[in-house]
């Protein structure tokens, strides 16, 4: 009996260990992944070899590959509706889901440059003597909606009208609902969209089915961002309220809205999946990144809403999904990149991480202290230790040195090259010049300002960001700074900390109102793009997007000048000059309130054992994995 009991216990123990072992090795589902290569460093310590990350182009569509099949994308976020400009929406996932459904006059290429999408060629800008401009557009021949209706200049005019009619335009270009009172129908398409610049349009003339002219009161550099979605006049609704309703459900009374992209919306089982089917009337992609200029190879796309990251990976491994795209998280890099069945692909995206400095802080108001911080930080070490192993060479090894242009864009200049590497001597010299001295434990203090302790905050729970904070925290300890990490979980961070009412009031008033002590250093990401002028608001005096408290009349004057500069090269140089105000002290003591860290890579894992062609590589516009959906092809 005693022996039997022991046997039972032993069996139970073995069973328990087997279960635990099974779970612990869940990321090494096959033999090859268990033999991940290791390298030995010069000093003999073993370190994990950098994960094999593909940063080159994905496999081209295979002529031998088959057409058909449904591409399945597992993603954690589900949009509230399909209306991107709905104030409750504005989520990236919505634009990612819309990207294969609807096209605009211009698209954005993998090099973060505009390309004519529905246009046959670049629009021609004519500058008139009175300062006004007229822009001539020509649409591609043979454009068609998925229901067979030709897509013409009248659709662009309809889009213009539906955006602006019944709306009021504020000074900053944002559209507000001009007539709707509470409980009444909206008189204009929701008011949060990025329609900045449309208020400058004075006339819209349709010359033929394919040609039209837009008159503007003055040149606006972001004109290519206008009409980034062109709506179908015959189907999207007769008035703003109908358009709002139809866009939200992506359907009208007759059925789903027709598409101009390679896919057609099919069905949406909330909480489970959203389905699209191939648009067989598609006129072909004009993207320089797309390899297939015909209709999509796959029959359709299914987006499964899988909230848990580990489940996304398990779904891939179980063959229930073919692609995942998510915030670059350690789990993906570590668990997928070593598996031969998957290709992990990344490319430099338009979103950049930065440390923003509160210039109203008692220490950070001193430009010498801000510069000491820049000297004390080693972005190279952050890249080498954190990003390069996961994302390969898709990002510059020295980190990002510009907030207006990204590293993969032509006009990019590293304005913070002088701070590359860690220069603790320069940092300490700066602090001493500012009146600081060592308090005895390596942290500096000022006779009036006190100990040099600064809080850095971000959206807690993001392992990559938190590790980055810890690395920089350790770096700055050598340069006299005591950095305390003070994160708030999730998106509440923004509303409670740098963009809280009190903090913004302080930033807008130079500290006279509100509370300038809510935060010291913030870490989050801004979105850039081919027209960087939209991001200049982050430095404008009193602007709601400027939590830093930066104020410089020269900057305020230069920002609109840049946007009004017609010549492309001159305008690019102007934005670079604008960046000098933000990332250096070259333009005066108010500068260096932003320290760009790195671009956030677009990050994908896809089942390369099943897909022969994938369209996931160049995604500099942040349009998501379906941006070149025409290229996906099954083996």
């Amino acid at each position, binding site marked *: 009996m005693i022996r*039997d*009991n022991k*046997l*039972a*216990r032993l*069996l*139970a123990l073995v*069973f*328990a260990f087997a*279960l635990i072992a*099974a*779970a612990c090795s*869940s990321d090494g*589902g*096959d033999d090859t992944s268990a033999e991940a290569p290791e390298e030995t460093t010069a000093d003999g310590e073993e370190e994990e070899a950098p994960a094999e990350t593909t940063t080159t182009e994905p496999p081209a569509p295979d002529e031998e590959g088959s057409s058909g099949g449904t591409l399945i994308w597992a993603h954690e976020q*589900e949009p*509230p*509706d399909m*209306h991107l400009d*709905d*104030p*409750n929406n*504005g989520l990236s996932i919505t634009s990612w889901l819309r990207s294969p459904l609807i096209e605009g006059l211009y698209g954005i290429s993998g090099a973060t440059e505009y390309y004519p999408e529905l246009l046959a060629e670049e629009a021609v800008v004519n500058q008139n003597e009175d300062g006004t401009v007229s822009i001539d557009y020509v649409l591609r021949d043979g454009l068609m909606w998925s229901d067979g209706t030709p897509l013409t200049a009248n659709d662009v005019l309809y889009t213009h009208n539906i955006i602006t009619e019944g709306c009021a335009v504020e000074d900053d270009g*944002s*559209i507000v*609902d001009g007539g709707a009172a*509470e409980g009444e129908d909206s008189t204009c398409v929701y*008011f*949060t*969209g*990025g*329609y*900045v610049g449309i208020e400058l349009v004075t006339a819209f003339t349709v010359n033929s089915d394919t040609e039209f002219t837009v008159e503007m009161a003055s040149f606006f550099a972001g004109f290519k961002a206008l009409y980034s979605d062109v709506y179908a006049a015959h189907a999207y609704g007769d008035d703003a309220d109908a358009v709002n309703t139809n866009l*939200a*459900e992506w359907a009208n009374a007759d059925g789903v809205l027709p598409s101009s992209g390679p896919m057609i919306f099919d069905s949406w089982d*909330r*909480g*489970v*999946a959203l389905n699209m089917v191939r648009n067989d009337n598609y006129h072909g992609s004009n993207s320089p990144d797309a390899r297939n200029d015909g209709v999509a190879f796959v029959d359709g796309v299914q987006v*499964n*809403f*899988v*909230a848990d990251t*580990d*489940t996304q990976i*398990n*779904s891939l*491994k*179980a*063959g*229930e999904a073919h692609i995942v795209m998510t915030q670059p998280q350690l789990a993906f890099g570590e668990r997928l990149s070593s598996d031969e069945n998957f290709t992990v692909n990344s490319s430099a995206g338009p979103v950049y991480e930065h440390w923003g400095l509160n210039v109203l802080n008692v220490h950070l108001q001193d430009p010498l202290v801000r510069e000491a911080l820049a000297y004390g930080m080693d972005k190279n070490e952050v890249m080498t230790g954190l990003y390069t192993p996961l994302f390969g060479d898709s990002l510059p090894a020295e980190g990002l040195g510009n907030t207006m242009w990204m590293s993969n864009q032509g006009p990019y200049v590293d304005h913070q090259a002088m701070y590359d590497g860690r220069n603790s001597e320069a940092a300490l010299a700066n602090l001493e010049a500012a009146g600081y001295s060592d308090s005895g434990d390596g942290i500096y203090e000022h006779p009036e300002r006190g100990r040099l302790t600064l809080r850095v905050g971000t959206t807690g729970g993001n392992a990559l960001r938190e590790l980055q904070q810890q690395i920089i925290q350790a770096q700055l300890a050598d340069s006299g700074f005591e950095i305390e990490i003070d994160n708030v979980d*999730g*998106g*509440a961070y*923004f*509303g409670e900390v740098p*963009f809280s009412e009190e903090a913004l009031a302080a930033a807008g008033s130079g500290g006279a109102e509100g509370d300038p002590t809510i935060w010291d250093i913030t870490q*989050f990401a801004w979105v850039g793009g081919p027209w960087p002028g939209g991001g200049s*608001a982050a430095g404008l005096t009193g602007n709601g*997007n400027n939590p830093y408290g930066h104020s410089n009349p020269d900057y305020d004057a230069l920002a609109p000048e840049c946007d009004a500069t017609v010549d492309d090269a001159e305008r690019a140089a102007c934005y670079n000059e604008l960046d000098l105000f933000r990332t250096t002290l070259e333009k005066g003591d108010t500068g260096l309130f932003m320290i760009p860290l790195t671009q956030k890579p677009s990050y994908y894992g896809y089942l390369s054992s099943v897909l022969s062609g994938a369209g996931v590589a160049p995604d500099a516009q942040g349009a998501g994995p379906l941006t070149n959906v025409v290229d996906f092809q099954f083996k």
Partner: protein
Amino acid sequence: MFIFALRRLFAAIPVFLVATFAIFWGTSEIVDPTDRLATCQTCSQAAYDRIIDLYELDKNVPLRYASWLGDFVTGDMGAATSQGERPVSEIFWERGRNTMLLALPAFFLLMGLGAATGIYSALRQYSKGDYAITSISYLGLAMPTFFFGLLLQVVFAIWVPKYLGVKPFWASGMHLESPLQFIRSVTLPVITLMFVLLAGDSRFIRASVLDIKSADYIRTARAKGVSERKVISKHLFRNAMIPAVTVWSLDAAALFGGSLITETIFSWPGFGRLAIEALQAGDLDLLMSISFAIIVLVIMFNLLADILYGVIDPRIRYD
């Protein structure tokens, strides 16, 4: 019994009011629906005003609660901003049905297996079977739900297909295309839901049966020559079920109220996942409706348990 049930229901009203106010107040403190606009570069004040109007954020919490309660009791559950402003009532029933699809089989299996393993363990105390059940119960008690769920995914959706060439279950998602697909998708989440609760229930019932097994009336029944089967079914089982009913009522409220972790891991679109989505999006109306459902479930199952006590043991009177 009817009077008793009615009295209990009336007594539940203050509980309901206090609980919903506490949740409303707590949620209002931690969730600011305007947060979602914090980094919107093109949002005008009108966008903020719209959200402030929608949730009456310009009023204090008690007034907002009163307004919500007034709407709620008149059948207006509000609009779910995290779901395209669809009526909460519509989403409520849709997701409630999905949770039921998961909770019902889990609950009945839990009761059956919990009773079976608990009684078997007690009647065969210190046998191999008892040790095996005890070991697995401890494993279940010690294992976090998310770990067990992911473990099942790896074993049954990745390893079994890889090594045996058949894929018995889906790793994630709710598949209602056919009864077979439903069973393939519901099995792993049901096992996950059940396993953790089953471990506790089994131990509880075992202890209860062991306690009753040595009671005087059981010994008397045996001494009277009553057959062992009758002793177990009529005397032992029935009396052991009284404490078990208490545990099952708590299990039922937990299961039917939605499981945050299991539904998230298995991408099951039920109440639990909806609650997380609503919390993340600051969707107050939706959050309050889910909270209401959970409160009602707890009250209802407790009442049901009280009634069942009397059914199982006629000595219990509803005075």
